[in-house]
């Protein structure tokens, strides 16, 4: 493919403006990374625009540092909402000078990481394939919409994605929970083995988790050394992150140029209605720069991509680019979340051991009520998986708590002795479930506000439906059941009044679907290859084209879908269709 591109695109390019790239990729996270990787390796000359700064985890990670050497024991702050060591360079729930607004009655949270690689530097590395049902949810239960593609169509790209980024797991053959090309799964920790036995009692499946962390060296990257701090970014590139896995190898081809501090404002459209390039603000100079290309790939993150499209207004496209369906920004989804804390006395006072493991769970529970839902026996549609964590973790701000709840109080030598015994017996369960897209959840441009670059900002509108709220209740009930089956105590503030502790929209940081793909230009923004119906040289490789938001965390599907889209772009160039 590389040769093909050089021959066709390269020759055409020689005649054109020397500053015209084959492809501009806006964004450097999972979606931008995979597009730049696949297209650069295919021989395209790619210019990547990243709104944040340069980041290389192998040089900048805080791996192995101790909280007692950090400000306030590495506590969470407004500037660092996930704590001092979190890899996020600049951003979080707020980005300085780049606000967003919430419509009345909406309490949306939007996490942005302004840095090379975006959120892939700190995310949980959970890598679950969507299953066959997940691509056709409307056909299955009459709610939401079907994807224009099937699991079988995306499966080869899941294979490629897993083989490149490295995902551990086991072959289980469970319903709608496809197995993948897995590296060996790490053995479970003690509390995980115990919870698995508790789940056996109540017939909840508990299987090895699937995370993008190397348990064996691949592609010149070493295996994990099990320090459990993946959220700080990995100093040895043993977990998936877009810079270390997608971008740096792409730069080595000589085909990828990365511009940081480049805040994309608008896709520039020519008189022919095709994308001509992208205008961005150079954050250093605050000046506007236009970069030209034959193909534009947006991967700025779901909502930011919608924002760029809505801001790309022209006489041909007065409502924003690719928006003839009126669906840009619409049907925004997040993941349903609800948590219960627990305490398992059986884990008290065990022989001290290092039980760090990888940066995340070694076991998890995939959804198990597919047949009950099909039979109409459940009060809500769509499922969730369960994540859990506990053990003798790194003591930082807030680690030792609950002495009041477990001991009833105390002080002195006896308290000290008790805390040692209690250390490692705490546990937490979190549900991560599917939200059905609804017309009340969307983003549009705030009519009055702009950011410091002069770009109109997004305004969010968001509502959970009864399905999500009842799903959160089911999570609560299940977690209590598991904890009780393990002989423990549970603690939760969730009640019917607070909708069973359901997370705020955006809080789980799985926002997807603001510019969905489909088979019909009247009811979708992108075609089945994530190519804009209204503008054939405009593509998207982030989560904006998602049609639904299965409980399978989005990053692996972004990677697989982005890979497929990038291959399609390369083929279309070869066929001279672009």
């Amino acid at each position, binding site marked *: 493919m590389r040769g093909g591109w050089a021959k066709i695109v390269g020759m055409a390019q020689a005649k054109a403006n020397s500053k015209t790239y084959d492809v501009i990729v806006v964004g450097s996270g999972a979606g931008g990374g995979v597009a730049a990787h696949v297209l650069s390796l295919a021989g395209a000359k790619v210019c990547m625009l990243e709104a944040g700064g340069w980041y290389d985890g192998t040089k900048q990670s805080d791996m192995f540092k*101790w*909280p*007692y*050497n*950090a*400000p*306030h*024991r*590495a506590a*969470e*702050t*407004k500037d660092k909402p996930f*704590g001092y060591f979190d890899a996020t360079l600049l951003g979080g729930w707020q980005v300085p000078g780049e606000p967003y607004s919430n419509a009345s009655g909406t309490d949306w949270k939007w996490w942005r990481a302004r840095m090379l690689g975006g959120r892939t530097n*700190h995310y*949980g590395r*959970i890598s679950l394939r969507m299953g066959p049902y997940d691509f056709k949810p409307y056909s299955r239960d009459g709610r939401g919409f079907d994807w224009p593609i099937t699991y079988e169509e995306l499966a080869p790209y899941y294979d490629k994605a897993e083989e490149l980024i490295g995902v551990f797991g086991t072959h289980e053959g469970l319903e709608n929970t496809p197995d993948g090309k897995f590296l060996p799964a790490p*053995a*479970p920790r*003690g509390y995980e*083995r115990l919870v698995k036995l508790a789940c056996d009692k109540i017939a909840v499946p508990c299987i090895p988790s699937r995370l993008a962390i190397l348990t064996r060296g691949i592609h010149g990257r070493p295996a994990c050394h*099990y320090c*459990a701090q993946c959220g700080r970014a990995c100093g040895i590139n043993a977990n998936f992150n877009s810079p270390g896995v997608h971008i740096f190898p792409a730069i080595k081809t000589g085909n990828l140029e990365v511009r940081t501090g480049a805040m994309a404002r608008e896709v520039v459209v020519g008189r022919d209605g095709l994308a001509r390039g992208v205008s961005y603000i150079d954050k250093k100079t605050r000046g506007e720069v236009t970069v030209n290309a034959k193909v534009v790939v947006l991967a700025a993150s779901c909502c930011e991509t919608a924002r760029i499209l809505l801001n790309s207004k022209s006489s041909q496209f007065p409502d924003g680019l690719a928006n003839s369906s009126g669906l840009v920004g619409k049907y925004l989804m997040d993941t349903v*979340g609800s*948590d219960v*804390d627990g*305490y398992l*006395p*059986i884990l008290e006072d065990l022989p001290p051991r290092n039980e*760090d493991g*990888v940066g995340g769970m070694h076991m998890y529970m995939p959804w198990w009520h597919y047949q009950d839902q099909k039979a109409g026996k459940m009060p809500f549609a769509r499922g969730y998986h369960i994540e859990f*964590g*506990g053990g003798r*973790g790194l003591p*930082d701000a*807030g*680690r*030792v*708590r*609950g*002495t*009041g*709840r*477990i001991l*009833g109080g105390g*002080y*002195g*030598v006896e*308290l*000290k002795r*008790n805390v040692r*015994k209690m*250390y490692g*017996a705490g*546990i*937490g369960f979190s549900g*991560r479930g599917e939200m059905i897209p609804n017309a009340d959840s969307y983003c549009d441009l705030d009519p009055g506000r702009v950011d410091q670059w002069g770009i109109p900002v997004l305004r969010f509108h968001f509502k959970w439906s009864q399905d999500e709220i009842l799903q959160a209740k089911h999570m609560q009930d299940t977690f209590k059941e598991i904890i009780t089956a393990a*002989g*423990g105590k549970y603690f939760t503030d969730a009640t019917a009044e607070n909708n069973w502790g359901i997370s705020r929209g955006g809080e789980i*940081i799985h926002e997807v679907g603001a510019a969905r793909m489909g088979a019909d230009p009247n009811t979708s923004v992108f075609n089945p290859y994530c190519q804009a119906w209204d503008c054939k040289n405009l593509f998207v490789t982030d989560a904006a084209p998602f049609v639904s938001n299965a409980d399978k*965390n989005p990053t692996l599907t972004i990677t697989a879908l982005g890979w497929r889209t990038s291959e399609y772009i390369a083929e279309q160039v070869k066929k001279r269709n672009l």
Partner: protein
Amino acid sequence: MTEKSGVSRRELFQIAGSVPALAAATAGAGVAQTHDTHAGAYQRKVFDEHDWHTVHVLCDLIVPADERSGSATAAGVPEFIDDWLDFRKQEDGHDDLTAQMLGGLAWLDRESSRLFGKAFGGVPVDQQKQILDRIAWPERAAPEDRRWAEFFSQFRDLTLNGFYSSKVGIADLPYLGNTAVEQWKGCDPAVWAKIEERMKNGYKGLGGEVKRWG
């Protein structure tokens, strides 16, 4: 957890907390630094001389030295608390937690003076404990002491967090990670044997009784 899958690791690991996350000193003048390298360098931000003394006394009543490790003050916990209160004030935009802690300390002095004729920091340990015994177990506290029991619970959480996130406290627990492991083997057989034995025979722990695993 994020994600972080969105799940905050911290949320997952909290045992059952009821107060905001607690933590420690600044990079330049932190607990560890105070303890390990810059002894005496800490500049107080919240407590005055009198309260500073009371905080030392109270911290060491909560976490005294024992056969395994030193006391709270040896681990720099007073410095941690002083810094934490100042930090919360900056982060929260109000000083409610500081007010609560200073107010609790003032009550300890008032109550001690009323009962024993001297401020809390100046009376013998058994008299100090007489007061603490009334407020250290909130469920047992008399109605008129409940407010002060709430104060004490918060102060205790601050002390425990400062202590167990310090180098001294980490060695005390002990936490044995944050290091490179050549080969991950999963749950240690000795640990699992103990869990299995408890499943077989049942176990009575601090957090209640676990019945035999049926």
